[in-house]
C-alpha cells in the first residue's frame, strides 16, 4: 500500500499549551487507520491538523509538515479551504443542517462551494452518495424531509454522505459513533469497511474494541506523543511498548 499522507514533526498548540508533540506517521492509502489513546491525549487535535481544522479555533496553531500526495498542506501558499475539499471530516455529533432537506444536505457541500448543477445532476449525486453511505434505502422516499427528522444513526450516515459528495480522497472521522447506540455503531463500522475500497480513512476512537474491529493500522497516542504505530493485529496481541500494553489491558491508573 503506498502512503497517502506523510506526517513530519507535527506539533500543535492551543495558545501556549502544547497539545501534540513532534508526531511522525505514514498513513497508508485505502486503509483504515485508528488513533486510540486516553482522554486528552491529543488524538482529536492531531486529526484536526490533518485537514487544517485545528487552526480555526482562536489562538490555535500547528507546525510541521503534512504531505498529501507530494504536496505539503501546511506550505504558506496553500489555501486551507482547498485542503478541506480533498480531506473531509465527520464529527462526533451528527450535524445535519437543520434548515435544509435531506437531499439539500447531501448536496450542500457542492452548492455552497458554488458548483452549479442541474436537477438531474443533483439527483444523481444525492443518490450516489446516499447509497455509498448505506442510507439510500431508508430515505429514498422522503428526500425532501427535514434533515433533522432522522434518527441519530441515520443523521450520522447523512453527514457521511454529505462529506462524500464533495469527493474527497481522505475521510477523517472524530469519534463518529460516540453518540450512537450499538446497532447504529455497527452499521457505521460496516460502512467504513466498505468505503475503504475508495477512500483513505482515519478514525479517532476512545473505544479500543472499535479500533480492533475495523482498523488495519492503529496508532496509540499518549500525552500528545505518538507512542506506537503498527498493524492492529500486532498492537492488540503483542504490542512493543509497555505504555501500549498497559493501555490496552486496562492498567492505566
Amino acid at each position: 500500500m503506498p502512503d497517502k499522507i506523510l506526517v513530519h514533526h507535527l506539533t500543535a498548540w492551543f495558545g501556549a499549551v502544547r497539545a501534540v508533540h513532534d508526531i511522525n506517521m505514514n498513513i497508508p492509502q485505502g486503509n483504515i487507520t485508528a488513533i486510540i489513546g486516553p482522554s486528552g491525549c491529543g488524538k482529536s487535535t492531531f486529526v484536526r491538523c490533518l485537514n487544517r481544522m485545528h487552526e480555526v479555533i482562536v489562538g490555535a496553531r500547528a507546525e510541521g509538515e503534512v504531505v498529501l500526495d507530494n504536496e505539503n498542506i501546511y506550505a504558506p501558499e496553500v489555501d486551507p479551504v482547498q485542503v478541506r475539499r480533498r480531506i473531509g471530516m465527520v464529527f462526533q455529533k451528527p450535524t445535519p443542517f437543520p434548515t435544509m432537506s435531506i437531499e439539500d444536505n447531501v448536496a450542500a457541500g457542492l452548492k455552497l462551494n458554488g458548483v452549479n448543477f442541474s436537477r438531474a445532476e443533483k439527483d444523481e449525486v444525492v443518490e450516489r452518495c446516499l447509497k455509498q453511505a448505506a442510507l439510500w434505502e431508508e430515505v429514498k422516499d422522503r428526500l425532501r424531509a427535514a434533515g433533522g427528522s432522522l434518527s441519530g444513526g441515520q443523521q450520522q450516515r447523512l453527514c457521511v454522505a454529505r462529506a462524500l459528495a464533495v469527493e474527497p480522497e481522505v475521510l477523517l472521522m472524530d469519534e463518529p459513533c460516540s453518540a450512537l447506540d450499538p446497532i447504529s455503531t455497527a452499521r457505521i463500522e460496516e460502512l467504513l469497511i466498505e468505503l475503504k475500497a475508495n477512500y483513505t480513512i482515519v478514525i479517532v476512537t476512545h473505544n479500543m474494541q472499535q479500533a480492533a474491529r475495523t482498523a488495519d493500522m492503529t496508532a496509540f497516542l499518549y500525552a500528545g506523543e505518538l507512542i506506537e504505530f503498527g498493524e492492529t493485529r500486532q498492537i492488540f496481541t503483542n504490542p512493543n511498548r509497555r505504555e501500549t500494553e498497559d493501555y490496552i489491558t486496562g492498567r492505566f491508573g
Partner: protein
Amino acid sequence: MDQPQPLHTNLRYEEELRGLRASLLKMGGLVERQIAEAIDALVNRDTEMARQVIVNDKEVNRMDVDTDETCIRLLALHQPAGSDLRFITTGLKITTDLERIGDNAVNIAERVLELNEEPQIKPYIDIPRMASIAQSMVKDSIDAFMRQDVALANEVCTRDDEVDGLNRQVYRELLSYMAEDPRLIGRATRILFISKYLERIADHAENIAEMVTFMVKGKMIKHMDKKDRGHE
C-alpha cells in the same frame, strides 16, 4: 519482569485474573500428585492407592470445567488484549493438557489394579525414572507458566527426549521378556501401556511449555523443529 506492573483499573477483573492463576496452579499440583500416587501404587502394589487415584480424577475434571468457564467468561465480558489475552488463551489450552495428564494417570492406576492380581514379573527401574522425569516436567512447565520463564520452558522441552528414550528402552526389554516366556505377555503388555501413558504425559507437559513461550513472547513455536526454537 523488572518493575511490577500497575494493577488493572477494573479491580474485579484483576481479582478474577489472579483467581484464574491460582486455579491453574492448584490443578497442576493435583495432577502432579496423581502421577506420583499412580506410580507409588505400581511400585508398592498398593490397590487402595490406585483406587484413590481413579476417584480423584473427578476433582481434576471438575477443575477443568470450572477453569474453562472462567476463561470464556473473561473473554466475553472483558475483551482482554495483549498479555492478558495471551494469558487467558494459554490458560484455556493448559487446562486441556492437564486434564489429559490426569486421564493418563488414571489409566496407569487402572493397569496397576489389573497387574496386582498377578505376581510382579520384574523389578521396576525405568518406569519410576520415567515417572519422575514426567512429573518434574509437569511441575516445571507450570512453574514456567506462573513465572513467565521462557528459559525454563525451553529446558522442559528438552527433557521429553529423555522420556522418549526410556520408553523405547522399556519396549525393547519387555519385548525380549515376552519372546522368552509367553505366559508373561499379559502382564508385560500392561507395563508397556503404562510406559506409553508416561510418554504421553511427558508430551502434554511439553505442550504446556511451548504455550508458555507463546504467551511470553507472542510467538507460536509449536510444531517447530527443536533446533529452530532456541532462536525465538
